């Protein structure tokens, strides 16, 4: 009795649902799309079949396994991983510093105004040194020029004459002073 009552009730609710225009429209749409859905289900079956074939292909499975196998995964590796995890905060801090330094260097290299400024400052320091160097080169060139144009023959008397030159005398005085100082040190 109860069962037939429930049956009638469910038929009624189904009839009521089918009477709903929206449900009617949905069923109509579904029926229209059945061929398309069937094709989709067919494609899905193909994918499943392909997967099943791959799983049955033992040489392929062995190849994938060997590629993914982590041969060195032992307790030592795990301990190292944990140690690395512990060090990560300080490593990240260091990496950030390196990253910032690189960003700074990159920013300078792309900043023509800063590059000009640095070049200008460097030139200001280099200029006096270059000037001294230029003076030295001029002196050497003048000496070389005079020496090449000098065809005079020098004798022992010429050397005696040089000895009287103030520059040579000054040099001798330094040599003498150095020797005296060395002797005094040794005497102590």
């Amino acid at each position, binding site marked *: 009795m109860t069962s037939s009552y429930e049956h009638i009730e469910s038929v009624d609710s189904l009839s009521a649902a089918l009477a709903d225009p929206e449900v009617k429209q949905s069923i109509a749409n579904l029926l229209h799309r059945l061929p398309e859905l069937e094709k989709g289900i067919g494609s899905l079956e193909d994918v499943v079949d392909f997967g099943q074939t791959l799983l049955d292909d033992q040489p392929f499975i062995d190849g994938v396994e060997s590629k993914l196998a982590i041969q060195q995964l032992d307790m030592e590796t795990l301990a190292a991983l944990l140690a690395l995890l512990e060090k990560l905060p300080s490593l990240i801090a260091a990496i950030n510093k390196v990253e*910032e*330094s690189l*960003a*700074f260097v990159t*920013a*300078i290299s792309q*900043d023509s*105004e*800063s590059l000009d*400024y*640095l070049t200008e*400052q460097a030139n200001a320091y280099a200029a006096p040194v270059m000037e001294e160097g230029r003076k030295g080169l001029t002196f050497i060139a003048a000496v070389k020029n005079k020496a090449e144009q000098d065809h005079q023959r020098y004798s022992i008397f010429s050397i005696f004459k040089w000895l009287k030159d103030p520059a040579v005398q000054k040099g001798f005085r330094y040599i003498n002073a150095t020797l005296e100082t060395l002797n005094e040190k040794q005497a102590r």
Partner: protein
Amino acid sequence: MNTNNEIVIVGGGSGGISVASRLLRISPELKNHITIIDPAQFHYYQPLWTLVGAGVARKESSERTMASVIPEGVKWLQEKVVRFMPKENLVKLGNNETIPYDFLVVAGGIEINWDGVKGLKETIGKNGVCSNYSYEHVDYTWQLIRTFQGGNAVFTHPATPVKCGGAPQKIMYLAEDSFNRTGVRDKSNVIFGSANPAIFDVQKYREALEKVVERKKIDARFRTNLIEVRGEEKQAVFENLDTHEKEVVSYDMLHVTPPMQSPEFIRESPLANEAGWVDVHKYTLQHNSYENVFGLGDSSGLPTSKTGAAIRKQAPVVAKNLAAALKQQPLAAIYNGYSSCPLVTGYNKLILAEFDYDKNPDESMPFNQAVERRSMYVMKKDLLPVMYWDGMLKGTM
């Protein structure tokens, strides 16, 4: 993080640009969600002006267009802010537009009050009156120093907070050095009229600088404040801050450090403390009343010297704490009041003062920084400008 959050930064100076760059480095997803509001056309590296006034740097090296320093991915509104409405999370612009924000950073800088000294505005740039605190007139400082023939060279420090508190005396030391080089030192009196009670706040550097003042035979007069400049008569009027007595000093050259104040749109706003500066927590730099507001730089009410070096340390704190606030995490970054002053004491000499809130030295170098060093001078002159443009403003230094 909610990337729909909009961050507005008021001020495109050292603080504003640095914070924007750092925020983007910390949270790249904030790209195109940060807006800098600043009406200026140019951005200046002002620490160089001391050396420009001393004839060893070109002022053009201190100037770049604002557009060139705005970080990529940050929007720039070239307008002035006239009003803060923190309860509504709005800022009002000079063109009457209102800009909403989720988080606000105030880095509005400090305002020079040229009217704060009677007669100054009318005579600055002529009659022997110069100031390194003006891009326009900084060349005139060098003109006066290099053509100085002797007499009274007067340098001042006002009775207000100033940006870079060491600058008023740096140019004095350089001028004195120049007078020696040009052979007029014997005919010159170098006078320092300062409203401060001593040559420097931090004892370690004060002792070193007192020796410099003594060696250079500088007539240092403390607790005295410039109140009037009579350009035509070449007279400077000082007031003793304790006795209120006035003293008229004749000058042949007068370098003025003008009085400074918090910008009006800040000091008249709900964000300001009683003194008119942005009321931020001294360690977290978060506003004391509005949680979504942060502040840094010269416009903040932090009890430390207003220097670019201080901003260099404040910017990462603001950026980290703002990023934390965006994620609703606790604010972990702390600013310890660090400030620094590269005190140029002559051509090729510099004392690098670095200190914290408690006026304790907080030095970066492994040697005694109270000693005058050439290496530190080279660093200031040749390296710091590049570190500023390519490091600090890019958020890496």
